């Protein structure tokens, strides 16, 4: 092979007015979830108004970074070139200690060892200058 093609990069989120604060905290490796400052209810994904008390006031509440696998999928088809040659890859739903669930990938763990309930902790993948993504690895004792 002579033609040198750049390796495909991971897709990145689109930063928008209602969500950019989330991604800005992640860029600093701070795992946060949006929380209403009036009634203290978490909401994910981010949105302008609390669906419980209708307050527009919110904070980006810092999470511990620990959680457990709630469910997972093993993807056999690469639908984006970043995953070419990387299938099967996992996608996991992590239930954070604080009770909110987020979609991520589990790293440092063979797919056949993934279990629902497995304790995990956050690690960071810097995708670009602007974007860092929370990933998870099995929590070591």
């Amino acid at each position, binding site marked *: 092979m002579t033609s040198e093609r750049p390796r495909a990069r991971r897709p990145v989120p689109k930063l928008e007015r209602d969500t950019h604060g989330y991604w800005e905290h992640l860029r600093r490796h701070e795992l946060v979830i949006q929380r209403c400052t009036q009634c203290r209810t978490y909401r994910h994904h981010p949105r302008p108004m609390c669906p419980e008390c209708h307050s527009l006031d919110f904070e980006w509440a810092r999470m511990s970074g620990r959680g457990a696998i709630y469910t997972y999928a093993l993807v*056999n088809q690469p639908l984006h070139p970043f995953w070419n040659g990387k299938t099967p890859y996992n996608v996991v739903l992590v239930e954070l200690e604080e009770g909110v669930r987020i*979609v991520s990938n589990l790293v440092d763990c063979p797919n056949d060892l993934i279990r629902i309930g497995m304790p995990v902790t956050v690690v960071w993948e810097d995708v670009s200058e602007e*974007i860092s993504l929370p990933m998870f690895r099995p929590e070591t004792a």
Partner: protein
Amino acid sequence: MKARALQNKAAIAGIGCTDFSRDSGRTEYQLALEAAVAACRDAGISPHEIDCITLSSYQSETVDEAELVNGLGMKNLSYLGLVGHGGGAGCAVVGHAALAIATGMAETALCLRALNSRSEFRYGQFDKNRGEENLEAPVPWFYSFLHPYGFFTPAQWAAFWARRHMHEYGTTAEHFGAIAVAARKHAARNPAARFYRQPITMQDYLDCRMVVDPIRLFDCCLETDGACAVIVTSAERARDLAHRPAYIRAMAQGTGGPGLFPITAFNRERITGMEETARMGDFLFAMADLRREDIDVAQLYDHFGPLVLLSLEDLGFCARGEGGPFVEGGRIELGGDLPINTHGGLVAEAYIHGFNHIVEGVRQVRGTSTAQVEGAEHVLVTSADGVPTSGLILSRST
């Protein structure tokens, strides 16, 4: 109590479909026109008599009301309606037409869905369609929380629900397989179906390709080019037309509460059932004054077989967690207590965003299905869940 004002006021009087294929060789516009004319002929009316059009909308529609007017030539449209969320809309599209008719806003309605979901936009290939230069997640904005992790398609999202159901309730691959086997058994009798004369065994199911573990190929809906249309009119007028009316006994929509994202409502209390389907089902049966056991046959939206199992629980046909045992032993096959998707469904007949489920519901009421349930009186039809959903109960008599 929800209003019963709609009960049996309107009926489906005509049904029409194009052929179902992998490459129609014609535009979605043409498919829509062909299905519309077929439905009018079936009802015994002229397209020029249509005064109401209701359609569904999601992301990829290419046919609108103006083009239907331009193609079909009606001059007296007085009511137009559009229901969002594609697969979730189908039953509501018919229901909104029924509401227009019941309130005197219109007399004869055309409802349809046309799509080239195999030869043009393929839902199951989501990011592949976009090319590798396109790194930024697309709108709508919530894709930004999924795409960076390689989580692109409804099949992938459905896997989360299926896995969690297996974990909480001991549901097995064979339980999911029972849904696929039933669909293929029914499709095998249906000459219009993609899998006509191609039944499968449970072993065939277990041996088929794993698309996204635990979702197998035979759990997944097809990708189809085709169109389906129905004509809705007043119950009174329907009695004077060509076929036995399929009375619209009830229609309901449902969203459930906050946290509603497309098949990704992962921050609701449970992800072993769809809140919007449970709410819609309660509204629907209350409006119909019927019990679950009054339903003779059901056409349940089957984008993914395992989600049908969830629907059976959400709709109250069995208790939470008992969907697996419920589908065992042929209960959902022709001859069982509750035959499901007697045309073969989205997994074995065609993927027309569930409009083919509505057409099959009408056939059961008329007694003309290729997998006819003897004496079917009440037929339940549902549209996609995981999005704002809807359902219909069609009945043979008032």
